[in-house]
């Protein structure tokens, strides 16, 4: 019989041995797959078992937001031009895609918070919590994509060859969302300000991003469209979907690459900070 594996806990920082640290991270991620799936199924079943509307809740918020803008635009209260397609379709697509991003931003903090009791009592691969959250985000994304398909059918928008890049655009949105989410999660787990401020911030951020309006080139909006990292992601996603010319593809790739790096760094920080969070989180 092979001798049992030895685990050592010591005060040293795991960063002293980076090779081992990275290897452990990926091993834990693999080990966490099954548990993550179970946690996802658990949360999904629990979430919808006691609601009447069920999965409708996944796309209700973006629908309401876009209806607001569609109404404002149709009544002439707000004038949005140069979208290249019927405005309702534009707004709906925009808000549904934006919701995917927001979901990804909120995911790490929410997942850690929901699993507080488990994290502070049992030793299991921590990645399972994040991965389970990711599965939930993907599931909600699938619901929203099906709604997107419905929107495109209703307003007769046909995708072109750019559709091949659409999955990459979505991956980019997710990666950026997660990067932001991971960055705020250690602070979010300790201080409530983050969780309370997040909905307000994302609401405002939506207005600063070309979600319900096309990207501008002049003035403050133009400046923001260029420098807001989510802008190219948003715009490119919409363009690849709707057969529009890809205007911000360069910045898009830059942002996606940076996001992937940030996600990895965020994961690393999560792993290193977890024991300290457990100390303070109680639960």
């Amino acid at each position: 019989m092979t001798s049992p594996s030895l685990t050592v806990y010591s005060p040293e920082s795991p960063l002293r041995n980076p090779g081992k640290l990275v290897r452990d991270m990926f091993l834990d991620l693999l080990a966490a797959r099954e548990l993550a799936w179970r946690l996802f199924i658990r949360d999904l079943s629990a979430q919808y078992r006691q609601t009447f509307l069920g999965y409708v809740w996944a796309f209700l918020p973006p629908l309401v937001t876009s209806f607001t803008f569609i109404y404002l635009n149709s009544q002439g209260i707000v004038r949005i031009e140069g979208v290249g397609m019927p405005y309702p379709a534009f707004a709906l697509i925009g808000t549904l895609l934006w919701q995917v991003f927001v979901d990804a931003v909120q995911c790490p903090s929410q997942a850690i918070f929901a699993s507080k009791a488990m994290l502070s009592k049992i030793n299991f691969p921590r990645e399972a919590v994040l991965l389970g959250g990711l599965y939930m985000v993907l599931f909600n994304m699938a619901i929203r994509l099906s709604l997107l398909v419905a929107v495109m059918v209703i307003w007769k928008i046909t995708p072109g060859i750019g559709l091949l890049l659409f999955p990459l655009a979505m991956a980019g949105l997710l990666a950026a969302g997660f990067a932001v989410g991971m960055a705020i999660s250690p602070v979010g787990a300790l201080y409530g300000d983050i969780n309370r401020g997040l909905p307000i911030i994302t609401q405002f951020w939506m207005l600063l991003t070309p979600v319900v309006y096309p990207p501008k080139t002049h003035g403050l909006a133009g400046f923001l469209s260029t420098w807001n990292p989510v802008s190219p992601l948003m715009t490119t996603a919409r363009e690849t979907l709707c057969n529009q010319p890809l205007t911000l593809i360069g910045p898009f790739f830059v942002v996606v690459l940076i996001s992937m790096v940030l996600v990895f760094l965020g994961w690393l920080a999560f792993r290193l900070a977890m024991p300290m969070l457990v100390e303070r989180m109680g639960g």
Partner: protein
Amino acid sequence: MEDMGAELVGGSRQHDILRPEEFWAVNDVSFELRRGECLGLIGRNGAGKTTLLRMLNGLIKPDHGKIEMRGRVGALIALGTGFNPILTGRENIYVNGSVLGLTKREIDEKIEDIIDFAEIRDFIDAPVQSYSSGMQVRLGFAVATALEPDVLLLDEVLAVGDGAFRTKCFVRISALLRNAAVIFVSHSEEQLTRICTSGIVLKQGTVAHLGTLKDCMTTYRDMQPENTVAQNAYHDPAVQRAELKLETTEHASGDDLHFKMHYSLDREIKLSLHVLSVVDESGSLVAVCDLLPVWNTFPAGTATPSFTVRSLSLRPGSYTFSLEVASVEHATVLIRKHFRDRLRVSGSIVHWCSYTPKVV
């Protein structure tokens, strides 16, 4: 936050210096445990037992020193971790088992055993929120022991459940003990003496004693403040006075104990119950002496009968006495009183158990 910052840049934290308002929850605790051994972790509330278990479980990093764990570590620190009340018992078995480290295949193999152990077969497909707390505990325990760990950490989880279930749990733990090392936290003397082979007593984070269970229990008992005797003295108005006087407050185990009672009544009363109870330091009932055969009627006026308990063999410690008397006419209690006088018993402790009769 400072700690996280230091951790993230790979620096070493300022380990030796405590910041203001900080204290060492666990300070200089060292021990070794092997397969087949069960260590009782004893201490008052707040001594650092749960913190120590969390460190052994890998949840908190030590600031000094090193912890080495060989093999799979299973912990029953909170039963039902990962339970979602809306899901059924069966679904929760899979979730909880997964969190504890069981693979789906292992759970499939053991699920019938788990359901049988928890004795909730009729309700296994009902949502957990409809379970009583006892049923939830049984389910949590059943899942947690399905895992066959190399090291098992038990944190005060056997305080719940009825006697029959607790017995089942002990049998299961003894079976696991054959192949594992167990650390068991409890306040119950009975439970500790049942399965522990050695003990460690923590006091405010430091080791007060590490050694045989018997010595640890003595140390722990000495750490307890002397229980203030409950003030629930009850006299029926017919009784003016009921007192107990011990002939001596020092007693060697095995000697006869002489005591005197002092009663004052306004009329004669026939008794249906006349009982003297011996209570130990923690308030548990140790022995009961039936005085009815010797004294079954109170005469009117004052009386001071003397009694002798032959060969009172008690474990060394400190004991108090209480009296309960009921009369034939009213079916109610005439006297219920706990006396302050303490009897200190001396002798050698062979085993931690209150009643220690001599054998010839």
